């Protein structure tokens, strides 16, 4: 089975009990999806909450670092240590870091939890829909008010993401040219050296994304693709702004399927992209979002529920996540783990 990705190594190490917690980075779901696949907790904070200094840049308008742990409380402790201003990341926000642990009061009485109708997407497995409904029940039982909401531009989030992210990646990864650092393959001339180095050093999916990025940014296509995607991003962010007039947080599944075999579906890039359908919209809007382990699939694989919060309301999100964790009482452990 795959642990999910891209922070799948972090997720697997935490799940296997070989570390207490691990850092991850999340551009479109890379903390939350592996957290769900591995049965752990992971939070992608608000864009700008944690410094990305030292992280290999992928899509700079989306990249954010965050903690991955075995409990929501550990996540709160680790996030408190990670969050804050860093002059070495000019996108990091200079505002006080609250005590996230103190915000975990265990009470969500009167909180309004939104359930977006557009997240009932085709291809989501029945067991995940069932778990989502269970999560809604848990929230209601804890005294929260469930509110049906609409995020009308949801279906355009993935297409917008697969323009914005490759465009930024193609620009960020231009630095891997074999001159200043990293892998180099000699060529007949400088241009040949660049091309051979990059073809040899980047994997298939990375090369595909660089090509897509170069294409959508190229002369004549920039407006039709890149600017269009940025406009759609505004619409998606506005959907969330409107929803947060009515609710305090939003509950969705984390991924449309449990973990899959390492020989399954990876041949089809689009099918792989659809795995991020629930996590990408919050990324495009820069919102904090977390995955909490909530149950097992019929095959015994971990499933996560996903909470999306308002900007810089990580404390609220962790509090709701903590209530969810308690209700779910997820106790499954992987067979392969440290000390077992």
């Amino acid at each position, binding site marked *: 089975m795959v642990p999910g990705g891209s922070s799948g190594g972090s997720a697997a190490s935490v799940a296997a009990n070989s570390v207490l917690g691990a850092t991850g980075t999340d551009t479109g779901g890379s903390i939350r999806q592996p957290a769900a696949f591995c049965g752990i907790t992971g939070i992608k904070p608000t*864009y700008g909450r944690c410094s990305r200094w030292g992280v290999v840049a992928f899509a700079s308008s989306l990249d954010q670092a965050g903690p991955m742990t075995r409990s929501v409380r550990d996540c709160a402790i680790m996030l408190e240590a990670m969050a804050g201003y860093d002059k070495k990341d*000019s996108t990091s926000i200079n505002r006080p870091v609250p005590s996230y642990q103190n915000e975990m009061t265990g009470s969500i009485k009167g909180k309004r939890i939104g359930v977006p109708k557009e997240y009932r997407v085709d291809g989501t497995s029945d067991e995940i829909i069932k778990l989502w409904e269970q999560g809604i029940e848990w929230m209601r039982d804890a005294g929260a008010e469930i509110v049906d909401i609409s995020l009308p531009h949801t279906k355009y989030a993935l297409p917008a993401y697969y323009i914005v992210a490759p465009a930024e990646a193609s620009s960020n990864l231009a630095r891997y040219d074999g001159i200043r650092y990293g892998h180099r393959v000699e060529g007949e001339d400088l241009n040949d*050296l660049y091309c051979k180095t990059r073809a040899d050093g980047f994997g298939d999916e990375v*090369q595909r994304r660089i090509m897509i990025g170069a*294409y959508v940014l190229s002369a004549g296509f920039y407006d039709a693709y890149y600017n269009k995607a940025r406009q759609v991003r505004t619409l998606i962010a506005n959907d969330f702004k409107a929803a947060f007039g009515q609710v305090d947080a939003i509950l969705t599944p984390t991924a449309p399927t449990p973990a899959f075999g390492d020989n399954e579906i990876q041949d089809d890039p689009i099918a792989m992209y659809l795995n991020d359908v629930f996590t990408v919209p919050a990324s495009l*809007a820069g919102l904090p979002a977390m995955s909490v382990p909530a149950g097992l699939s019929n095959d015994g694989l971990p499933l996560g529920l996903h909470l999306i919060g308002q900007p810089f309301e990580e404390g609220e999100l962790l509090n709701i996540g903590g209530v969810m964790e308690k209700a779910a009482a997820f106790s499954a452990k992987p067979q392969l783990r440290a000390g077992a």
Partner: protein
Amino acid sequence: MSLDRSTVEKVAQLAKLAIDEDDKDRLAGELNAIIGFVEQLSELDTTGVQPMTSVVEANAPLRADVVNDGDIAEKVLANAPERVQDFFAVPKVVE
């Protein structure tokens, strides 16, 4: 939606990626599928919508315009595949 073999060659040159002859048709097919997927956006009327530049409303931080770093040539060159004295070395570009 017309990402043919010659477009693949052009884009590969922009992206500085050497593509094997045998892979060009496969890549054209894959890229077409992705472009076809993202073209759903054209259904949406976005007239008058401001393109997003930043997800958080924050001013870019300013610092004093003074030298605050430098003199670390050894560190900068430490990972260079090839160097000559304090310079990155590249194949000859001028005959």
